[in-house]
């Protein structure tokens, strides 16, 4: 019994709906593994040229991939060992400067006293300071639980990070075998087209991600230089310049929000150290970040990242929200590169596929 065209269509439709429903149901459970794979693909695309460069010196592919992964691991370990004490110090300073229990209660109490003295009757008799104390006490009780949660999160992050490195290593080592394995599944009819599109996507993505990475590095370095100059010339007393620069570089991956987020720690550092000409220093720090952004937007990014992966501001806004919802700050940082990957992929398919239709 042969099926009619309509029956075949209905069967395909049902199959598609079941498949889509299954995928939607499974997706939340697969979130971690999908995230790990996406980050591994990003890292592979970024690191592949370095492995290729090592291969030029007749170093076998596996050894080249291992060397690159070990260098990354060492850099991260070195960075963490340098940054963690800095973050610890900064956190201590901040908590000292903004001691919640003392200043907040004092300020609120003085505000209430001021209002009561101005009003004819003692209108505000609420026990706000006591309420705040209660809140702080309850928070103190919750802290062990929160720390446990944070500890678990940290362990998860570390295990995910090692998974990422492990998967990236195999992507780098077996790149050609993986590519051939994927291409083997493609029917003859679409073989040349798939190969051509895959190749173009890989090339575009590699240069795009390297551009993003270099632009972020340039933002970090120029911020450090700018802040260092302000510190040296005006004796501004800005602490943790390197940390602020690294943060500014990472934050730069988040469009629109990033530049501001990068400047905030520097301004806070000025406010905390309270140099004699605080206002001038704050203005100078803002000027440094504005100049860094000017350089990045007009010279560095157009040259390194190029216009090919330019995303519409509305799209950027939407992907930032999605990234933020899925993975918080990390999600916001990866949102634009992932959106760039999707744009390049579809762009290449749309541009090249029609050339193979005759």
């Amino acid at each position, binding site marked *: 019994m042969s099926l009619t065209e309509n029956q075949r269509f209905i069967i395909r439709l049902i199959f598609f709906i079941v498949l889509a429903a299954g995928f939607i149901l499974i997706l939340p459970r697969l979130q971690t593994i999908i995230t790990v794979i996406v980050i591994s693909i990003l890292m592979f695309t970024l690191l592949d040229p370095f492995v*290729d460069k090592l*291969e*030029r010196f007749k170093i076998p592919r596996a050894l080249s991939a291992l060397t690159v992964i070990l260098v990354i691991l060492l850099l991260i370990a070195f960075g963490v060992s340098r940054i963690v004490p800095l973050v610890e110090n900064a956190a201590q300073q901040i908590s000292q400067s903004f001691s919640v229990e003392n200043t907040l209660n004092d300020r609120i109490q003085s505000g209430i006293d001021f209002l009561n003295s101005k009003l004819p009757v003692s209108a505000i008799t609420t026990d706000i300071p006591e309420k705040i104390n209660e809140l702080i006490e309850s928070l103190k009780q919750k802290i062990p639980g929160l720390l446990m949660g944070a500890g678990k999160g940290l362990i998860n992050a570390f295990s995910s990070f090692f998974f990422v490195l492990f998967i990236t290593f195999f992507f780098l080592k077996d790149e*050609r075998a993986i590519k*051939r394995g994927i*291409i083997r599944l493609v029917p*003859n009819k679409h*073989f*040349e*087209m798939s*190969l*051509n599109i895959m*190749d173009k996507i*890989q*090339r575009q993505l590699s240069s795009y991600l390297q551009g993003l990475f270099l632009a972020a590095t340039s933002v970090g370095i120029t911020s450090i230089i700018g802040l260092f100059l302000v510190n040296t010339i005006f004796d501004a007393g800005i602490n943790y310049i390197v940390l602020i620069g690294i943060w500014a570089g990472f934050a730069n991956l988040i469009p629109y929000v990033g530049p501001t987020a990068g400047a905030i720690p520097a301004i806070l550092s000025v406010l905390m150290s309270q140099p004699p000409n605080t206002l001038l220093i704050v203005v100078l720090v803002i000027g440094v970040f504005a100049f860094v952004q000017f350089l990045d937007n007009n010279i560095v990014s157009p040259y390194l990242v190029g216009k090919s992966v330019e995303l519409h501001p509305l799209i950027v806004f939407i992907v930032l929200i999605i990234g933020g919802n899925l993975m918080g700050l990390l999600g916001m940082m990866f949102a634009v590169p992932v959106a760039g990957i999707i744009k390049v992929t579809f762009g290449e398919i749309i541009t*090249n596929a029609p*050339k*193979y239709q*005759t």
Partner: protein
Amino acid sequence: MTSVLWRSIGRKEKTREEIMMEALSNVNIFRNLSRKELKEVLDLVYHRVYKKGDYIFKQGYPGNGMYIILKGTVQIIQEKIEGDTKEEEILVTLHSGDFLGEMSLLDEAPRSASAYCTELTEVLGFFRGDLMDLLNRNPELGSKIVLNIARVLGERLRITNQLLAELQEKQKKETES
């Protein structure tokens, strides 16, 4: 009789890899490569099997790379459109050991003809993206291949020039007479 027996005992069956290596070494763009270099190229090629009646590529498709025929027969067919009529002309029939499309290793110009399999055909495909990748990773080997392509193209250009000169000579004689 004895010698045949001994020959068959002494002879080893060629492995699939050896067959592919041999096919590669017979193509002039891989001719002066060492065994190690051929092995590296072998890591980059794609083995494909086409059924009778399949097209390896069609006229007008963007050129992406070359194919070496391991087994089977491929017709190179050019489609000519004159007015409302479409005509197909078989330019050449290629067999095992022949290769096609090597010009596409250099640019993405559309294929000038289609490659049609008249029987079950096995091919090895070598593509521009992988050649560019090879130039980046192993410039020595990559440039050897590119130089060989240049030699093949130079040879073809010489033949074309010769044919053109002969044609011009013939035309000149015809106008004189």
